[in-house]
């Protein structure tokens, strides 16, 4: 096993174990604990095994190719500092697993807990071992996500949900900042490889983008390690199960922030910006956290604020940018992990055994659980910085560093005073923790008699407290080599000498310690009365609740502002959308054309008065149609027909007979179609609403008119410009020359449709088919407007008339109405069929073709429907339009595919002139079969659309019945059947 492989192994094992853990049964607490414990032991073992490799400042490195193109490979990199974290993660992890085995209730679904826990462990290991700064971000965010899941483990509790969400939001935001920061650093040094980055300190610090990069990296670090003003999420994360707090919020996750500061300390520290930002944030956090911790009534809250404060201490040290301060910071990272994890566990035991963590309700527990109390007291002492415990050592180093003379007199004064005050507060909250919980009278109103926890549950605390003691008494032979390895990997081989001895002689640091201890005791005594009142939250700044501010900001931004912005810059109405579309369609091309069109010469050559008159008519009809469309729909439709005819004549005028025919036919079908629809549109009557509304509508109309006018002018200019330009040398000559030679037809347009560009036609008929199917589908469950469910007024009046006249019966009027016309309409049926066949067959050589023929055929059908009614026609003709559509498509397709079977590309056509006796040369073009497909589809689709609409009239009496509130009296089953 090579060392580098071991790194991969150490990273993968937790994730693999997490998967396994997720699949274990709900109540497998022991199995889960064994699995997690083994994993942690394996990780710890690997770390211990690898220590010699990193002891002397060297690095174990493993690179796995992932995305070389992006400079993003998986690089696992273990140096002394990462090793220290690795041991914390696995070691504390192991202890927490053991603790959690007893802490978690049998009712809790443990697979989820251990799966998330192990995944978090893996993420943390990945983070500290990242040798690529993007990979570091990846694991960074993974720790945020897994911690989110762990905090929200008891998601039935609202505070767990809120706490989890807040933690994720804040740390996620920081992570995104970190990502950009890392990207900038990568851009500066030209690589994302951490080793390259660490070698480029000068380049980074002198780069113009240093400050933004620094700010973004700090955003990540400070949010993660809960530094002021991003601290507020941490206390609310205490809704997590205590093992999670002990692990994440003391030893690992919050430490990731300071890990990052340390990691980038060699390349980013040492500048004024770094000093001021980091130190200030750290100092503010240190004092604020300690102050707030004093006034917490929840044990875990107290510990959380204490954690914030200690992280502030570490941050302050790192901000000072001196190697010795960094040594102290690294040392305190380790020390804080030990005593804080043990304190969290102790708090958890109290909670677990007594059922509350409220200091106000707790008291005198020493007599019930003396052993646990002793452990907690020792750990608290370490937290307070009492000599002979590890906390004292690093705090002494801290004092020594802040006491160093600085050029800036303010700094010179502020740092030592702030540090001393914060230490004093630390003594106060430590005292409160110990005194408030373990001493005093017996607690009252407890449901069960408190007792010591199971021995194994206590064991992790014992081990941690032992570490506090051992390190505190004999640091030189316990922690020293490991600390040295860590320090060297950060500050480099030239790290100045530092002493770990307990006694440094009488110096300012010792004096500060003394002041803090004595002052702390006195302050606790002074505050005792106030604290005994049990008011939650720190005085003076009680109103400053990070959570409430955060939630208000989030609510304002994500709901209020977002909705307002969405409404302001978006719309759900159709008109503005179309307005914007057309506005852009005018503005963009106009901006490209302005002053680039060159001279447009107005030319009146070839002016034809007839054509001008025709277009005068066309324009008048169009404008009139536009004007009438709102209230006089039928009129608009009629006028539309006028414009259509002018369009059609224009096509003829400029040599497009196929277009003219098709336009005409479509025109007819469209008119019938819209009329069929018109029956279902109730009348519009002019309503005269209030003045303001009318005015608003008028303004809108004028605005639309202006845009419409501009669009028209634009189209005129563009169309005129192109029409008067030289024809470019294009593809069209090829078609004219080869339509007959290669396509076997003289109607070039038709040859294009069924041969040169048959693929377009295939798509086009598919569109028609699809639309027909859609229309059919929509109409199948059509619900007419309530006003139009009833028979049209005319029919009602006429039926009433028939009813009243004695010799008439209902329906006489309509049958008389159609008696004579229907005869002629029937006669036209064969005529139309002949016309359709004619247009179809001549299409290849003369204007016509499958499409025109198809429309003609469907008009023939529609005419019969108009003459005889739906029932009458369908009794006589069975039209299966969907089949027509399907077979049309298949036929067209088959022609194309047939070419493929003989080795040509799809849609290759063949044609030949066959000599048929008596008839002569007959063109046999495969394109004709394609056109037959077109014909079939067009018939099917058009008929389907129109008939589906027409069927609504037959359906509507049923719909009316359906809509009636009370059903018609139902015929009872035994009633005599009168009629069928």
């Amino acid at each position, binding site marked *: 096993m090579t060392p580098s492989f071991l790194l991969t192994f150490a990273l993968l094992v937790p994730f693999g174990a997490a998967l396994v853990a997720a699949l274990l049964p709900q109540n497998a607490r022991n199995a889960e604990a064994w699995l997690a414990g083994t994993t942690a032991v394996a990780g710890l073992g690997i770390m211990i095994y690898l220590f010699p490799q990193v002891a002397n400042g060297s690095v174990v490195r493993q690179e796995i190719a992932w995305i070389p193109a992006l400079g993003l490979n998986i690089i696992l990199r273990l140096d002394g500092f990462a090793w220290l974290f690795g041991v914390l993660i696995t070691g504390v992890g192991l202890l927490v697993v053991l603790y959690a085995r007893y802490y978690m209730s049998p009712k809790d679904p443990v697979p989820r807990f251990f799966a998330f826990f192990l995944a978090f462990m893996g993420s943390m290991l990945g983070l500290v071992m990242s040798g690529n700064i993007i990979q570091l971000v990846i694991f960074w965010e993974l720790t945020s996500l897994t911690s989110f899941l762990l905090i929200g483990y008891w998601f039935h509790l609202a505070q767990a949900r809120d706490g989890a969400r807040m933690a994720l939001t804040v740390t996620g935001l920081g992570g995104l900042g970190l990502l950009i920061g890392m990207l900038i650093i990568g851009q500066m040094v030209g690589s994302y490889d951490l080793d390259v980055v660490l070698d480029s300190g000068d380049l980074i610090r002198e780069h113009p983008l240093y400050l933004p990069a620094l700010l973004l990296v700090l955003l990540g670090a400070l949010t993660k390690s809960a530094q002021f003003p991003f601290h507020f999420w941490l206390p609310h994360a205490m809704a997590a199960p205590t093992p999670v707090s002990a692990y994440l919020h003391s030893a690992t996750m919050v430490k990731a922030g300071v890990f990052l500061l340390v990691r980038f300390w060699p390349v980013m520290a040492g500048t004024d910006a770094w000093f001021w930002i980091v130190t200030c944030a750290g100092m503010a956090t240190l004092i604020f956290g300690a102050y707030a911790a004093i006034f917490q009534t929840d044990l875990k809250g107290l510990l959380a604020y204490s954690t914030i404060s200690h992280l502030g201490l570490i941050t302050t040290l790192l901000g000072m940018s001196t190697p010795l301060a960094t040594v102290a910071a690294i040392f305190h990272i380790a020390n804080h992990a030990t005593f804080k994890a043990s304190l969290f566990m102790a708090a958890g035991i109290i909670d677990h055994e007594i059922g509350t963590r409220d200091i106000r309700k707790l008291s005198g527990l020493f007599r019930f659980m003396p052993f646990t109390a002793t452990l907690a007291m020792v750990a608290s002492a370490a937290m307070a910085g009492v000599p002979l415990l590890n906390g004292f050592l690093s705090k002494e180093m801290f004092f020594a560093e802040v006491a160093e003379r600085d050029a800036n007199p303010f700094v010179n004064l502020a740092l030592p005073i702030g540090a001393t005050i914060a230490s004093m507060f630390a003594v106060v909250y430590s005292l409160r923790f110990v005194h408030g919980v373990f001493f005093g009278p017996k607690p009252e109103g407890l449901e069960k008699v408190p007792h010591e926890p199971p021995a194994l549950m206590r064991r992790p605390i014992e081990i941690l407290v032992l570490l506090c003691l051992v390190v505190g008494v004999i640091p030189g032979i316990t922690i020293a080599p490991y600390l040295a390895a860590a320090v060297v990997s950060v500050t480099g081989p030239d790290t100045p000498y530092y002493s770990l001895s307990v006694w440094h002689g009488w110096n300012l640091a010792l004096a500060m310690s003394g002041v803090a201890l004595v002052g702390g005791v006195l302050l606790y005594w002074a505050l005792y009365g106030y604290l005994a009142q049990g008011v939650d939250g720190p005085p003076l700044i009680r109103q400053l609740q990070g959570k409430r501010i955060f939630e208000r900001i989030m609510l304002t931004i994500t709901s209020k502002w977002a909705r307002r912005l969405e409404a302001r810059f978006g719309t759900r109405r159709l008109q503005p959308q179309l307005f914007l579309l057309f506005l852009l369609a005018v503005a963009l091309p106009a901006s490209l054309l302005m002053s680039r069109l060159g001279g447009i010469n107005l030319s009146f050559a070839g002016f034809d008065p007839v054509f001008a008159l025709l277009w005068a008519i066309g324009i008048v009809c169009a404008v009139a149609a536009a004007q009438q469309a709102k209230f006089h729909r039928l009129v608009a439709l009629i006028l539309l027909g006028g414009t259509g005819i002018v369009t059609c004549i224009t096509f003829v005028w400029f040599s497009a007979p196929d277009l003219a025919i098709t336009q005409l036919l479509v025109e007819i079908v469209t008119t019938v179609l819209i009329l069929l629809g018109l029956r279902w549109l109730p009348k519009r009557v002019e309503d005269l609403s209030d003045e303001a509304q009318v005015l608003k509508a008028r303004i809108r109309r004028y605005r639309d008119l202006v845009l419409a006018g501009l669009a028209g002018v634009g189209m005129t200019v563009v169309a005129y410009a192109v029409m008067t330009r030289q024809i470019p040398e294009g593809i069209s000559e090829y078609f004219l020359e080869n339509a007959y030679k290669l396509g076997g037809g003289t109607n070039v347009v038709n040859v294009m449709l069924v041969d040169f560009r048959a693929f377009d036609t295939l798509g086009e008929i598919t569109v028609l088919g699809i639309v027909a199917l859609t229309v059919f589908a929509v109409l199948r469950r059509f619900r007419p407007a309530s006003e139009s469910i009833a028979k049209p007024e005319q029919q009602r009046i006429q039926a009433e008339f028939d009813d009243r006249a004695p*010799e*008439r019966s209902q329906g006489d009027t309509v049958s*008389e109405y159609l*008696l*004579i016309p229907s*005869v*002629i309409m*029937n*006669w036209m*049926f*064969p*005529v139309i*069929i*002949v*016309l359709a*066949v*004619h247009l179809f*067959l001549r299409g290849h050589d003369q204007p016509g073709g499958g499409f025109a023929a198809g429309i003609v055929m469907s008009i023939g059908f529609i005419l*019969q429907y108009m003459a*005889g009614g739906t029932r009458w*026609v369908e009794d*006589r*003709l069975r039209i299966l339009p969907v089949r027509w559509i399907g077979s049309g498509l298949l036929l067209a397709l088959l022609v194309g595919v047939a070419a493929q079977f003989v080795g040509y590309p799809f849609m290759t056509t063949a044609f030949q002139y066959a000599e*048929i006796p*008596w*008839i*002569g040369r*007959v063109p046999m073009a495969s394109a004709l079969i394609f056109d037959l497909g077109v014909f079939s589809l067009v018939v099917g689709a058009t008929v389907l659309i129109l008939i589906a609409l027409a069927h609504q009239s037959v359906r509507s009496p049923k719909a009316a019945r359906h809509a009636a509130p009370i059903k018609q009296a139902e015929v009872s089953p035994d009633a005599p059947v009168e009629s069928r």
Partner: protein
Amino acid sequence: MMRQILPYPLLSLGMLALWLLLQQSLGLGHILLGTLVALFAGRALAALEPDRPRIRKPLKIIQLMALVAVDVLRSNLAVARIVLDGRHREHHSGFLLLPLELRDRSALAVLSCIITATPGSAWLEYDAMRGTVLIHVLDLVDEQAWIDTIKHRYESLLLEIFQ
């Protein structure tokens, strides 16, 4: 059997003529193809089952057509004059209720076509129960003259052809 293949011989013949006119050709191929198309068209009409008109004297149709042509030409000129006179002329237009003996739907259709196609007269409403038709006449000077014209010139001829 024959009726199934050729339900409307005259109509199919007409369709063949239509086909040949459309093709502008009398080639054998077109005649054959046209026959097929015409047969198909006849079958299509048969599917609709309209009343099968029984034409007794097909030759009289030509006589009728000539008659109509002349009348239409005359009316064209008459109506053109009325239009040119414009508002200055006195109102002569009016409705006319005409009793008919003709009952065959096809014959009625032909008559309605004739009357409406002739400028100056328009077929408005046929009452099947009573066999009367309401006609609007643009230049209704002599009501009886109109009735006579229609009844004697057209109806009698149509009765001959169709019944």
